[in-house]
């Protein structure tokens, strides 16, 4: 009789512990301490730095890491997500290839119980990514544009090199720039073309623009790689002293170029801040935190010859 009573007591107690354990985990199975880092491309030093910094921070927090390259292709990105979701990763630190095209991948991860933390680039959806830590490219471009207007003395003709069409950063940087410059009627844009955030394409596009518009006095580029390519084309045409080049990103070679009075300005983004914050949030999520700000803007700072000594590639000294 006593044995039976003891047995039933143990069974009830056992059930209680099973329920409690499930409750503590919020009904979620604890995953391995592995973070996946998915970046749009590893063919650009800025994104290499973003990925490697995120991986280094995650490792420092005690996680295994693996970097996946989406090669600026949403289909490759989908393959990466499919591999990740069958490999017991506890979080994805994500730099999307396409603001709309990447939403489905993040939704799949969410359904699989894997939190996604976006870095730098956003996805156009609410309630899908756990948090998005985003470079405030629009406001950064506003600052660049104010300086552009000042340097060009509110007049002259200029051209614009855009990034990848469809990317939100391309839109944000261009819109921020034009929200200022378009208020000055004597500043006229004579050509605008995409060079896909690529240095070689930047050079080629600039060469053809110079043939059609030899009298321009300014170039605004959606990133530093294109700005460096454009500057190279201007050197080839002997116009590097008369045409002012403005970039965006804060890449190492752009910062050096500003110091050497070649490029005029860039917008310093902070990939280290974004990558480390994403890894830190993922760690907090693993440890039970659930309330994250859905989107967090990270300010972009104007770098010119006046303050360039405060900066290094991808950040502050």
């Amino acid at each position: 009789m006593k044995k039976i009573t003891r047995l039933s007591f143990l069974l009830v107690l056992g059930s209680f512990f099973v329920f409690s354990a499930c409750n503590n985990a919020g009904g979620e199975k604890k995953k391995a301490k592995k973070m996946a880092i998915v970046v749009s491309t590893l063919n650009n030093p800025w994104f290499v730095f973003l990925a490697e910094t995120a991986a280094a921070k995650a490792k420092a927090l005690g996680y295994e890491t693996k970097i996946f390259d989406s090669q600026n292709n949403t289909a490759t990105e989908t393959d990466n997500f499919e591999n990740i979701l069958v490999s017991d990763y506890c979080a994805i630190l994500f730099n999307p290839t396409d603001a709309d095209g990447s939403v489905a991948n993040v939704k799949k991860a969410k359904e699989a119980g894997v939190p996604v933390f976006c870095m730098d680039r956003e996805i156009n959806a609410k309630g899908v990514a756990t948090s998005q830590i985003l470079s405030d490219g629009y406001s950064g471009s506003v600052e660049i544009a104010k300086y552009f207007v000042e340097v060009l003395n509110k007049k002259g003709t200029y051209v614009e090199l855009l990034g990848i069409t469809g990317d939100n950063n391309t839109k944000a940087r261009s819109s921020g720039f034009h929200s200022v410059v378009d208020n000055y009627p004597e500043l006229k844009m004579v050509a605008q073309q995409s060079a896909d955030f690529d240095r070689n394409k930047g050079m080629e596009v600039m060469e053809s623009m110079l043939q059609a518009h030899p009298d321009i006095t300014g170039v605004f580029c959606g990133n530093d790689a294109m700005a460096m390519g454009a500057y190279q084309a201007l050197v080839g045409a002997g116009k590097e002293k008369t045409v002012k080049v403005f970039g965006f990103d804060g890449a190492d070679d752009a910062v050096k170029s500003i110091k050497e009075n070649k490029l005029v300005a860039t917008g310093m983004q902070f990939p280290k801040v974004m990558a480390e914050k994403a890894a830190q949030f993922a760690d907090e999520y693993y440890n039970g935190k659930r309330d994250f700000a859905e989107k967090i803007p990270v300010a972009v700072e104007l770098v010119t010859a006046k303050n360039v000594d405060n900066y290094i590639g991808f950040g502050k000294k």
Partner: protein
Amino acid sequence: MNKKWIGYIILISVAGLLLYNSVYFKKLDAKGITAAAAITDLDLAQFAQQFFTKTFTPYMDSAVEMNSFVQQLKADAKGTVAKYAKTQGIGNTAYVLVKGEGTITSVNEDVVIAAINTNDNVKLNTGVYFGNAVRDVTGKIRMGDFSNTMDYNTVSTTLNKIVQTQIVVPFKAKAAKGTHLQFVACAEINTEQVNTDNILLLPVKITYK
């Protein structure tokens, strides 16, 4: 009898366990159903105008006296920014709403200078304003309220246009040396390098006396 009870206990335990794993409770906002989600469905210009009328304008009553703010900023920059200013995300820019009263001492191309009560001067911007002070100074609009950040930026640009047309342009037209006025304005503070001598204010309300 005892065996029967043991059977019941085991049955209830197993049934409980199965039921527990079959039913999940989720908060509604976990599915993205939030009040702010409706914002994107509104016309952004209309949203900006409504925000300016219904949220921003009543918020002007909370503006801090300019003299007091500057004195506190000089004494304890970090504490004063934390007490009065609003920030968005990670960065060095903070916004605060200030108010004051004074007499215009000079009118320049894009700036009106007024001497306020203690004979300190303030600079009121009358040029085109580019920035996010109007959107961000109340702390009521967050980036996460918008599915697409471009909408968030458009709201800022639209609010700047509202202030430009409704307040700044009429003020610029009427500004004259010797005019006595009361103002409410947005101040933009660089929290990394606080400089109280060079704060350019964006007027959002001007009253003449």
